[in-house]
């Protein structure tokens, strides 16, 4: 399948990976970065002439961010790593673990990485909705835009702007090295909840629609902050900002959740394809966002400090 591949590079550092990719691009011929291969090999592009393997880079980690809290996740961290991370399980209701656990079969999750999941920029990417619901950013090393900056230049792109279209990540030839998740702005006495929902024939299928919600309420039970993100319902994973706005400032309850879900469905731009029709996707967006918000409500209600 990859008969024309003539070079398989295995660098040990990000700088070396970028240098190799730059040299290969100058020499001409198509090539790619590869980590788990669960997308690249399946895509089966027989015209590839070179590959830079990321397996040996020191990018497989989940770390607490120093100042201000939050997390950083190295781009070659696998879906299985995320799914089993005890630290992430305790963060944001384990929403990232839940999403990672649905990204294909166990063998796929042992190979597929967070970086590959995002950098393929599939609208159905399972990690995008929870990461969008956590205000995550992508850290990109090198590439056309980064090259103009200082050597070893890195830029940080809000995840929402990282997805430019189906299969079009904002990498400009750079390498996605890290995902940054800021500490959620939970006020004193407030509570927060997150949830992930996915629809496929099987849980491990590519999503027909997926969605994540995050809600923060103050001690007065009014919503202070809301994030609703939906995948496979537009050219990119998207934030339903008008639905979020509908929640903020009001008491967070079932009625508010259902109203927001209905509005979120109106913000999708789905297509019809082999997996589902556009109408079905729009309707399922409403259902999944509704379920995710209900789950958030339930999680807050189960909190021993709940006042209602």
């Amino acid at each position, binding site marked *: 399948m990859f008969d024309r591949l003539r070079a*398989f590079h*295995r660098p040990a550092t990000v700088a070396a990976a970028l240098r190799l990719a730059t040299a290969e691009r100058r020499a001409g011929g198509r090539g790619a970065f590869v980590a788990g291969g669960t997308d690249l090999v399946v895509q089966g592009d027989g015209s590839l002439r070179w*590959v830079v393997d990321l*397996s040996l880079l020191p990018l497989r980690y989940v770390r607490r961010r120093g100042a201000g809290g939050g997390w950083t996740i190295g781009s070659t961290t696998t879906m299985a790593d995320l799914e089993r991370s005890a630290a992430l399980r305790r963060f944001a209701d384990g929403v990232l673990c839940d999403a990672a656990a649905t990204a*294909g*079969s*166990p*063998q796929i999750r*042992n190979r597929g990485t967070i970086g590959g999941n995002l950098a393929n920029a599939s609208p159905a990417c399972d990690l995008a909705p929870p990461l969008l619901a956590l205000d995550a950013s992508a850290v990109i090393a090198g590439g056309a835009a980064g090259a103009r900056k200082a050597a070893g230049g890195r830029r940080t792109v809000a995840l929402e702007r990282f997805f430019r279209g189906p299969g079009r990540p904002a990498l400009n030839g750079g390498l996605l090295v890290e995902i940054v998740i800021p500490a959620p702005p939970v006020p004193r006495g407030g509570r927060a909840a997150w949830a992930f929902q996915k629809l496929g024939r099987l849980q491990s299928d590519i999503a027909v629609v997926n969605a994540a919600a995050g809600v923060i309420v103050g001690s007065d039970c009014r919503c202070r902050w809301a994030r609703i993100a939906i995948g496979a319902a537009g050219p990119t994973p998207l934030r339903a900002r008008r639905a979020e706005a509908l929640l903020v400032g009001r008491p967070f309850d079932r009625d508010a959740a259902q109203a927001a879900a209905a509005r979120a469905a109106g913000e999708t731009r789905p297509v019809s394809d082999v997996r589902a029709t556009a109408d079905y996707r729009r309707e399922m967006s409403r259902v999944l966002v509704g379920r995710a918000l209900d789950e958030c409500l339930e999680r807050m209600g189960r909190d021993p400090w709940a006042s209602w």
Partner: protein
Amino acid sequence: MGELVIRATVNGAPRRWTVAPGDLLLDVLRREGYWGVKNGCETGECGACAVLLDGEPVNSCLVFAAQADGRRIETVEGVAAGDRLDPVQEAFLDHGGVQCGYCTPAMILVTRALLARTPRPTEDEVREALSGVFCRCTGFKKPVEAVLAAAARLADARPAAPPAGRKPARKAAAR
């Protein structure tokens, strides 16, 4: 052009292979005689090509051979000790978990990985572990029974284990 020499440990034995940059691990393993690694779909769907890479199940059809350099590979050929079958293999035979046998090597391997991590899995955990290996003959009932039986047999055989039932129960709750 651009041949690579890779070194890997297969079933405990060091191997040195010359591969092309575009060779996939599945093809190299079969070329080298590990025919228990089955070529089913070549798109990472069916799981018949599963091997253990450093102890974890992966679909060898999606791994470049070059990426196996320096790694530990386990195929079904390494599971039995000579003529003595592994308890997992015996359980598959005893419980009728094998029909045509095409998916069996992969099932045996993912089961071994599961039991190494979770010695007393719940039925849900077993189903999850087997979910990436498609059987088109028997369905999954008998393989699931076989895995649960193998887990019980191995746990009974393990001396001085922690109080039965407590640790797995905690694990299940944490998932």
